[in-house]
C-alpha cells in the first residue's frame, strides 16, 4: 500500500484504456487509435487523474460524453466507461443499433447486474453486433481520487449522500438503505482497487455503524465466494503477505461539526474555502488590471480563468499544507530564482553573439554550442516554471484579497482560541457586531463554533443578545436551530470533544514578507503560525491505530471480514499497532481534517493514512445544508 491510491487507480485506468491489456513500454510502437466515451461519473473519475495530453498519449483521439450527439466514426474501437444505470444502458444499446463504431469495449464503473447485461445482449443480437462487442469489464473504480492519499465518493449525485440527506429527520428506511448501499458500493470498489481487506472499526449508534455492517457483509460474501473472489491472486500486492492489514476507521460527521465551519490558514484549505475549487480545478474571476479607464469606454471585463492544481505541480505539492504567509514567501523565492535563470540564458545568448566567430578551434565552438544546446533544452523547463509561478501568483493573490476583505486571519485566530478554550481578548458580541470584519456567513460560522465548543449552552439572555446581533449583521438563523437540536442529541451521548490546548502565536503584525517589498503586501494581516493540534478525528485515529485505551474509542465496534464468524464484540483480536489506516467520514469531510491527518502521520515514521469522505464541502456549502436542515 506504499503506492498511493492515486497511482493504483491511474494504473487501472491506463490498463483499461489499453484495451484491458497491461501497457507495454515501447517507444517506437505503432500508433493505435481509439475513442473514449464516458458519462459524468466517468468524467469525474478520469479528470483528476489523466490530463487530455495523457489521454492523447494513450491513443485516444476523441473523448465524448455518452449522452451527447455522436456521429458514426468508422473503423475505430470505442471504449466505454460508464455507470450501469438504466439510461446509460439504453443509450449504449442505441449506439449498438446505430453501428456507430467498429468495435466496443464496455467498462462499467461498478458491477453490472445480470439483467442489465442481458439487455445489452438483446440489443447486440438485434443489431447483429455481437461480434463487435469485444470485451466487457467491471472496473470497480467507483470513487474519485483527488490526492495521493485522499478520495471522495462521488461528485455528480452528492446530494444523494450529503450530510443533509443522511441526517434529515424525515428520512425513510428505504431511502436510508439506498444511501448506505451507494456508500458501501463505492467503499467496496475502493478496497478492491487497493487490493486489501481492512479491519473495520466504527462508533456505535451512528450512520457509520450501518455502513460498517454492510461493508463487512459485502466483503465477507465476496471472500467466501472462492470462484469469483476479487481479493485473490494477482490483486494482492507484496504487502498482503505481511501480517499488516490496514485499519478502516469509519466516523460520522456528527462527532465534530466545528471543523467544517472553521476558518483556515493553510493554502489548500484556504483555496477550497474561499475560491471555487473542486476536482483539483480552481476557477478564478479576474478583473482586467487596475489602470484607470477613461469614461465612456467599455466597462471592465472580468476574465474567468481556471487552473488545474495537479500532482505534477511541484510547488503545489510542496506547499499545499503550509500556512499562507509561507506560501507567499515561497512564491517570491521561486520568482527570484526563475529570474536568475532567465538572466543566465540571456547572458549566454550575448556571449554566443560575441564569441561565435573569433575562436577557430572546434572545441571552443562545440563547447559553446553545447552550452547553448543545454540552455535551449532547459527552456521548456523554464517556461513551465514560469507558468506555475504565474498560476500560483494569481491564485494566492485572489486568496489574499479575500483574506483582507473579510479579515479571515482575525477569525482564524479567534476560532482557534475558542476551540482551545483559552481566554478571548475580544468578546464574541463585539466580533459579531463589527461591521467590517467578514461576511454574515463568517459571523455565523464563528458563532456556531462557539456554540458547539462551549461546554454549556449560553444562557437565554445571552443567546437572545447574540441572535439579535447576528440578525443585525444579516445572518440567517436557520443553522442555529439545527445545531441546537444536534447539541441536545449529542449531549446525551457523550461530553463534547475538546480540541487540544494550544494557542497560535502571532508573529507580529508586519511580517517579513512586507519588508522584502513583495507583491503580497501582507500588512495588517497577521503572520500566524499554526501549532500542531489534533482535531477530534485525528485523535480517534491515534487511539485506534496505536491501540491506546481511551473512553472515547473503547466502545467502538470491531469487524474483521476475514474471520469466519462475525462477532459483536468490541475487543480487537489484533493487539499490535497498525501501520496503515484509512479514515472515512460518513456525511462529508474537508481539507482541514485532511491536512491535520497528514501532519499527524508525518510525525510517525513509516505509517500511512488515507482520508476519504462521502462528499467534500467547504463551509459555505455546509452552512447551506445546515440551514436547510434547520428550516424543517
Amino acid at each position, binding site marked *: 500500500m506504499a503506492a498511493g491510491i492515486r497511482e493504483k487507480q491511474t494504473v487501472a485506468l491506463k490498463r483499461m484504456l489499453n484495451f484491458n491489456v497491461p501497457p507495454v513500454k515501447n517507444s517506437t510502437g*505503432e500508433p493505435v487509435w481509439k475513442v473514449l466515451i464516458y458519462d459524468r461519473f466517468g468524467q469525474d473519475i478520469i479528470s483528476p487523474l489523466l490530463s487530455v495530453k495523457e489521454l*492523447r498519449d494513450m491513443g485516444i483521439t476523441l473523448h465524448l460524453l455518452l449522452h451527447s450527439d455522436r456521429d458514426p466514426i468508422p473503423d475505430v474501437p470505442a471504449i466505454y466507461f460508464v455507470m450501469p444505470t438504466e439510461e446509460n444502458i439504453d443509450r449504449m444499446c442505441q449506439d449498438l443499433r446505430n453501428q456507430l463504431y467498429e468495435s466496443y469495449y464496455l467498462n462499467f464503473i461498478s458491477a*453490472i447486474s445480470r439483467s442489465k447485461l442481458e439487455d*445489452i445482449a438483446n440489443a447486440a443480437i438485434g443489431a447483429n453486433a455481437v461480434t463487435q462487442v469485444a470485451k466487457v469489464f467491471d472496473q470497480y473504480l467507483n470513487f474519485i481520487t483527488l490526492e495521493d492519499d485522499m478520495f471522495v465518493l462521488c461528485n455528480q449525485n452528492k446530494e444523494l449522500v450529503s450530510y443533509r440527506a443522511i441526517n434529515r429527520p424525515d428520512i425513510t428506511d428505504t431511502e436510508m438503505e439506498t444511501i448506505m448501499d451507494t456508500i458501501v458500493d463505492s467503499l467496496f470498489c475502493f478496497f478492491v482497487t487497493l487490493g486489501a481487506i481492512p479491519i473495520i472499526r466504527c462508533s456505535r449508534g451512528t450512520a457509520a455503524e450501518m455502513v460498517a455492517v454492510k461493508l463487512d457483509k459485502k466483503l465477507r460474501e465476496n471472500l467466501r465466494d472462492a470462484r469469483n473472489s476479487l481479493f485473490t491472486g494477482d490483486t494482492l500486492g507484496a504487502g498482503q503477505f505481511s501480517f499488516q492489514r490496514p485499519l478502516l476507521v469509519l466516523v460520522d460527521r456528527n462527532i465534530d461539526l466545528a471543523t467544517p465551519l472553521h476558518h483556515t490558514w493553510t493554502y489548500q484549505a484556504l483555496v477550497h474555502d474561499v475560491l471555487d475549487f473542486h476536482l483539483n480545478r480552481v476557477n478564478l474571476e479576474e478583473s482586467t488590471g487596475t489602470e484607470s479607464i477613461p469614461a465612456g469606454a467599455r466597462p471592465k471585463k472580468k476574465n474567468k480563468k481556471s487552473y488545474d492544481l495537479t500532482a505534477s505541480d511541484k510547488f503545489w505539492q510542496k506547499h499545499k499544507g503550509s500556512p499562507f504567509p509561507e506560501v507567499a514567501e515561497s512564491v517570491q523565492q521561486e520568482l527570484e530564482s526563475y529570474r536568475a535563470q532567465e538572466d543566465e540564458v540571456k547572458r549566454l545568448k550575448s556571449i554566443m553573439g560575441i564569441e561565435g566567430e573569433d575562436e577557430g578551434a572546434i572545441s571552443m565552438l*562545440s563547447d559553446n554550442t553545447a552550452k547553448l544546446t543545454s540552455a535551449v533544452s532547459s527552456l521548456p523547463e523554464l517556461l513551465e516554471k514560469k507558468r506555475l509561478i504565474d498560476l500560483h501568483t494569481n491564485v494566492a493573490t485572489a486568496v489574499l484579497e479575500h483574506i483582507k476583505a473579510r479579515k479571515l486571519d482575525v477569525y482564524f485566530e479567534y476560532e482557534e482560541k475558542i476551540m482551545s478554550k483559552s481566554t478571548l481578548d475580544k468578546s464574541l458580541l463585539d466580533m459579531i457586531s463589527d461591521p467590517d470584519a467578514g461576511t454574515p456567513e463568517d459571523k455565523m460560522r464563528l458563532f456556531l463554533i462557539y456554540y458547539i465548543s462551549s461546554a454549556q449552552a449560553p444562557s437565554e439572555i445571552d443567546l437572545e443578545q447574540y441572535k439579535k446581533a447576528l440578525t443585525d449583521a444579516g445572518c440567517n438563523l436557520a443553522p442555529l436551530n439545527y445545531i441546537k437540536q444536534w447539541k441536545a442529541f449529542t449531549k446525551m451521548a457523550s461530553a463534547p470533544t475538546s480540541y487540544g490546548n494550544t494557542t497560535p502565536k502571532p508573529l507580529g503584525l508586519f511580517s517579513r514578507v512586507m519588508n522584502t517589498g513583495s507583491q503580497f503586501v501582507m500588512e495588517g494581516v497577521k503572520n500566524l503560525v499554526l501549532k500542531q493540534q489534533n482535531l477530534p478525528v485525528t485523535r480517534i485515529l491515534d487511539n485506534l491505530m496505536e491501540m491506546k485505551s481511551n473512553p472515547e474509542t473503547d466502545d467502538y465496534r470491531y469487524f474483521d471480514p476475514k474471520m469466519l464468524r462475525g462477532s459483536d464484540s468490541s475487543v480487537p483480536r489484533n493487539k499490535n499497532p497498525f501501520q496503515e489506516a484509512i479514515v472515512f467520514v460518513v456525511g462529508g469531510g474537508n481539507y482541514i481534517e485532511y491536512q491535520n491527518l497528514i501532519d499527524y502521520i508525518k510525525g510517525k515514521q513509516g505509517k500511512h493514512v488515507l482520508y476519504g469522505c462521502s462528499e467534500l464541502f467547504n463551509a459555505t456549502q455546509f452552512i447551506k445544508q445546515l440551514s436547510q436542515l434547520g428550516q424543517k
Partner: protein
Amino acid sequence: MAVDITLLFKASVKTVKTRNKALGVAAGDSARDELLKRGAARSKSDFTGRAREVISNIGKLKDFLLQHRKDYINAYSHIMSEYVRMTDTERDQIDQDAQIFMRTCADAIHQLRTEAHKDVQSAQVKEHRTAVLDFIEDYLKRVCKLYSEQRAIRVKRVIDKKRLSRLEPEQSNISKSPLSPEKNSQNPLDDSEEKLSSEESKDRNMPDAQSNLGLWGDGKGEDELSPEEIQMFEQENQRLVGEMNNLFDEVRQIEGKVVEISRLQEIFTEKVLQQETDIDNIHQLVVGATENIKEGNEDIREMFFYCLGSGFMFLNQQLQDFVRSYSVRNLKWYNQPDFYSPESNGSFVLCSEATNSHRGLSFF
C-alpha cells in the same frame, strides 16, 4: 481490480438467443443484410486504409533501420575481419535511402491531411482524423529520431577520432601514424554504445602502439627493401596520411558542426515561424493604421479647404503644425522595428505618401 465479464456476456447472449427462439421473436437482420451494411461501412473506411498503409510503411522503415543499426554503429573499423562490416559508402547509402523514405512518408501524411477533410460532414470525424494523422506523424518523428541518433553517434565518433589523433601530435612518428587511426577505430568498437573518453583510449593507444611498433619493425625488416627505401616510403606515407587527415579534418569538422547546429536550427525555425505569424499580425495592424491616417488626412485636408473658404487662416497654421508633427512622429515609429517582410516596406511607402500630401498642403 477489473473483472472480465466478457464470458458472462457471451453466456447472456446465448441465453437471450434461446429465449428469443423459444418465444418466437424474429432473429434480427439476416446475414445478407449484415454483409450489405458492412459493405457500406467499408467504403467510408478509405481514409483508414490509407492511414494504415502509411503506418506499415513507416514500420518497414523502422525495421530496416533497426536491422542495420548494429552494423552501422558497431562495425566501425576498416580492418574488421570475419564479420560483415559496413563501409562508409554503405552507410551513406543507408542514410540516403532513409531520407528519401522519410520524405515520401511525410508527403503521404501531408496528402492525407488535405484529403481528410474533403468529404466529411461531421465535426467529430474531422477531429478524429486530425488526431489520427497527428499520431502517424508522431510515429514518423520517433522513427526519424532513431535514424538521426545513429547518424549523430557516427559523426560524433569521427569527431572524437579526429580529436584524439590531434591530441597526440608528438606521437606522430612514422610507424604510429598509420597505426593510430586503426587503433582509434578499434577503441570505439570496444565501447560501441557508450561515450568515448579520450583519456582512456589515449592510454590504451600507448601500450598497443608500442607493442605493435615492435612487430611492425620486425615485419618490415624481413622484406627486401633497403633501409633508405623504407625511410622514403615511410616519409611519403606520413605526408599522404597528413594530407588525407587534413582533408578529412575539414569535412568532418563541418559535418559535426552542421549536425549540431541543424538541431538548434530546428528549434529556431519554430521560433521564427512563430515570430512570422506575430509579424503578420502587426503588419495587418500597420496597414489598418495607415488607412486610418490617410482617411484622417483627407478629412483634415477637407477641413483645411473649408476653413480657408471661411477665412480662418490662423487656425490653419496651428492645424498644419499639429498635422506635420503628427506625421513626422509616425515616420519615426515606422522606422524603428526591423521588419524583414517586403510588404512592410510597402506600408512605409504608403505612409510617406500620406506625409508628402501634408507637405504639399503646407506649400499651399
